[in-house]
Each structure stands twice: as structure tokens, then as C-alpha cells.
């Protein structure tokens, strides 16, 4: 009887491992697809009772990645990306925002090592489903601690493209969801479809929001309380207010979740400690001497609080 128990336990362990391995091989496939496949489609974004559909096209060619997002409700707002260069066209504000994203050309957009991700998330291939007329495999990533949300990812069985992504709280509450209604893999469209359709007039303003990189030694701050698995992915100095000094913006990622920390002189601005969140993106703000620290990200507010409180001035 005892032996049988061992056998069953062993079998359970092996099948759990196999399950995780399956899950990771799908994640790798998804990761690969996200870096190499062109597609176009329409997706619906849902968060806190808000629903919005958008058209998206991504083209990958010899020059790199080209992307265009266009909202389908209200006045069309567009986001255009060529590799790191991002342009947001906001007609209501008559505004074009230029920025440099750090997401492109990074090896392993999702995560470089499955093992590292496995330490912080429990990954399981939980089933199959059908969405946007396509067969999908469903991978669930459950966090092993309370510092991040869970993910339910629907991955296209044929191509590895992500068809649906649900961000879930510990009790399976939905934080946000991206869900494709239409998905056409391949570059069945022309470059001209990736161009901005907005017709800005002279009254539009162009804002360059891109920051300049700084090295960790250049800043007098250290980040002491990052939850396990979070690594710094960028450190820039950027101006967030016309009248204020530049802020330090540090970005961290655990491979799936992202946290930004902004540190700037208060310069008389009132600062609130009130944590809150808009959709999936939470925000927590505190004062550190004459500086304001803002932590922001798609993680529970408790994690933001921890990160913000861990920001300390380096001792000389």
C-alpha cells in the first residue's frame, strides 16, 4: 500500500512537471511568435466594467517591428510603433506624444528563462478553447506569492500568437482582459496600413516624452524591497511636469508583470499617499524627504506600496 502511494505521488509529480513543461513550451512558442510573426486583428479590452475594441496590425520585416493600434470607438486614437519609436495620436487633446519604448529588440520579451519564471509563477496547461474562430491552448500562471497577479493566456495552437490574456487576482477576480475577436496571422496587408491616419493640423502639439538613459551609479537611490523575481529593465531621466525637475524613472519586470518607480523633487507639489488604481494599473505615492516617490504597475497595490517604501537614498 505504501509503495502504491509512492508510485501515485511520483506519478503526480511527474505529470505536474510534464504539465509545467508543456505550459512553458507553449509560452516559449508564444514568445517566439510575438517576436517573429506579423498579424492583424481586432481585440476587445475590458477592465473594471469598461470595454473598448481596437484594431491592431503588426508587421515584422527586415527593418524590425512595425505596429499600429487604432481605437474603434469614439474619435480614433492611434498608436504607431517602429521598433522602439512610439507615436500616440490623441485628437481630443490635439496632441502627438513621442516616446521610446524599451520593449522591442529585447531578447525574450516574455522571459528569458522559463526556470526563472517557474520560481515565481506556477505554470499549467489547463486546457483548450476556441476564440476568434481559432483553436487555442490555455496556460495558467498562478503567482507563488501575493506580489503579483495571475495570468490566463490563450495561445493560438497553430501559430503561438496570443489570442486572449486575462489578468486575475488571487480569488480569480478579473483585473483586465485582452481578447481577440478577429485574428489574421501573416502580413496580408501593406505598409501603408501601418501609417497614421490622423490628420494633425498646425494646432496639434508634439510632445517628446522620451527620457535619457542613466546608469544606476548616477542616481542616489536604491531599491531595497523589490518582490522576488523583479529585475530592473530600464533607468531613464525624463521630464513629467513643465515646471518641475526631471524625474528618475526606473522600470522593473518579473517577466510578466511590470512596475515603474518615479522619483522627483516635490517642488511644492502636494503629494498624496492614497493608493489607487485605474483599470489594471495601480498607483502608490509617498514622500521621501523632499522627494516624491510614485510606484505604478499592473500588480496589486500592496506590491506597489512595498516597492515605493523600499526606495531609499544611498548612504554616502
Amino acid at each position: 500500500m505504501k509503495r502504491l502511494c509512492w508510485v501515485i505521488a511520483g506519478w503526480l509529480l511527474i505529470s505536474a512537471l510534464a504539465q509545467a513543461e508543456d505550459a512553458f513550451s507553449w509560452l516559449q512558442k508564444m514568445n517566439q511568435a510575438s517576436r517573429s510573426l506579423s498579424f492583424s486583428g481586432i481585440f476587445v479590452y475590458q477592465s473594471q466594467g469598461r470595454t473598448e475594441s481596437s484594431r491592431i496590425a503588426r508587421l515584422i520585416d527586415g527593418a524590425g517591428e512595425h505596429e499600429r493600434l487604432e481605437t474603434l470607438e469614439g474619435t480614433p486614437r492611434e498608436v504607431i510603433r517602429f521598433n522602439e519609436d512610439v507615436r500616440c495620436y490623441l485628437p481630443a487633446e490635439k496632441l502627438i506624444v513621442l516616446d521610446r519604448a524599451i520593449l522591442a529588440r529585447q531578447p525574450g520579451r516574455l522571459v528569458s528563462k522559463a526556470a526563472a519564471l517557474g520560481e515565481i509563477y506556477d505554470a499549467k496547461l489547463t486546457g483548450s478553447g476556441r476564440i476568434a474562430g481559432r483553436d487555442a491552448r490555455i496556460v495558467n500562471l498562478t503567482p507563488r506569492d501575493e506580489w503579483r497577479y495571475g495570468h490566463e493566456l490563450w495561445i493560438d495552437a497553430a501559430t503561438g500568437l496570443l489570442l486572449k490574456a486575462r489578468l486575475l487576482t488571487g480569488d480569480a477576480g478579473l483585473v483586465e482582459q485582452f481578447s481577440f475577436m478577429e485574428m489574421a496571422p501573416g502580413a496580408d496587408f501593406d505598409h501603408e496600413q501601418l501609417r497614421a491616419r490622423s490628420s494633425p493640423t498646425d494646432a496639434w502639439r508634439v510632445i517628446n516624452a522620451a527620457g535619457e538613459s542613466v546608469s544606476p551609479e548616477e542616481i542616489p537611490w536604491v531599491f531595497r524591497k523589490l518582490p522576488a523575481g523583479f529585475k530592473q529593465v530600464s533607468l531613464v531621466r525624463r521630464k513629467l511636469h513643465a515646471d518641475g525637475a526631471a524625474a528618475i524613472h526606473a522600470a522593473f519586470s518579473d517577466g510578466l508583470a511590470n512596475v515603474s518607480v518615479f522619483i522627483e523633487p516635490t517642488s511644492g507639489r502636494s503629494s498624496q499617499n492614497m493608493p489607487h488604481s485605474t483599470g489594471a494599473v495601480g498607483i502608490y505615492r509617498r514622500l521621501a524627504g523632499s522627494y516624491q516617490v510614485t510606484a505604478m504597475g499592473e500588480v496589486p497595490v500592496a506590491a506597489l506600496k512595498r516597492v515605493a517604501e523600499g526606495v531609499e537614498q544611498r548612504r554616502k
Partner: protein
Amino acid sequence: MKNERLSAWVDGEADEQDGASVMRELAGEASVRQDCELFWLIGDALRSPQQTGLGVDLTARIMDALESEPTVLAPRRQVLRTAPAGKDRWLPAAAAVAGVAVAAWMSFSLLAPARQEVARPMAVAAPVANDPKPVQLVVGGEQAYYMAHQASTIGAPIGGVAQYIRTVGDEQTGMR
């Protein structure tokens, strides 16, 4: 340099004088014509991801066929010279109005009030011609942070521009 001038001309970026020289060279030198064709071909190749039809070259064949055609002659008339349709559309207003050739690069802050908008003109100092409205940024003025955060979300499963929907979405930009 001759070919650099040609390259700018191909882009519609040569001034009148350079344009006139390019036209003369195109008329007189086969090698300039070939370079020009090559530049156009490169543009088509870059714009056409599936590359269909790139190998087509009908020019010689059509020019042969035109040998027997009578030469076209049209009476000279005043032709419409319209402003470029879209290219200069979003030159900063100041540069356009002041006739400044180099776009003065305005480094605005997202939360800039109207009067403080001209922060650091980089190339040429140009006065603000219009009186742009202050930017209404929502989410309690947090949008600058959201934008910056969104640009740094390297890991998210839904990568690339899709996640910008969180920032440029209907409610965020007050479209409803």
C-alpha cells in the same frame, strides 16, 4: 553631392534650385535616371512586405511601344500648384507660421500649462504663433506617468502597442 540631391528630390524634399538641377541631370544622363529608378525601387521594396511585383520592369518595353506614338504636345497652361497634401501637416505651428525652415523642436511637458509651452527650442528659436489651449490630461494629471510606464512594460504577455489601450482608451482620454 549629386546623388544626395537626387535622393532628397525623390522624397519631395529638394528646394526649387536643386530640383531644377536634378531635372536637368535626369534629362541628360542615363546613369542618373538609373539611380533614380533604383531609389524608387528601394522604396517600393521597403513598403511591400510580400514583395510582389518588384521584379516588374516595363519601362523599356513601354518606351519601345511609344516610339511609334506621336510626341505629346500640350499648350502651356497655368498648372495647379497645391500645397503638399499631408507632409508638413504637423510641423509645429510656430515653425510653419514663422516660415522657419528647420522645425524648432519643442520639448513640451505633458502637463505644461499654455504659457510655458516653449521649453527648449533646439535648432531655431521660433515664437509661438498660435495660442494653443492647455492640454487637458485626465486621470488626475497622471497620464504622464501612465504613458511613461506603458513605454517600459517589457514583459507583459500582450506586448507592443496593444497595452497602450490602457492609456489612450476612451475613458482615459475623456472621449465619451
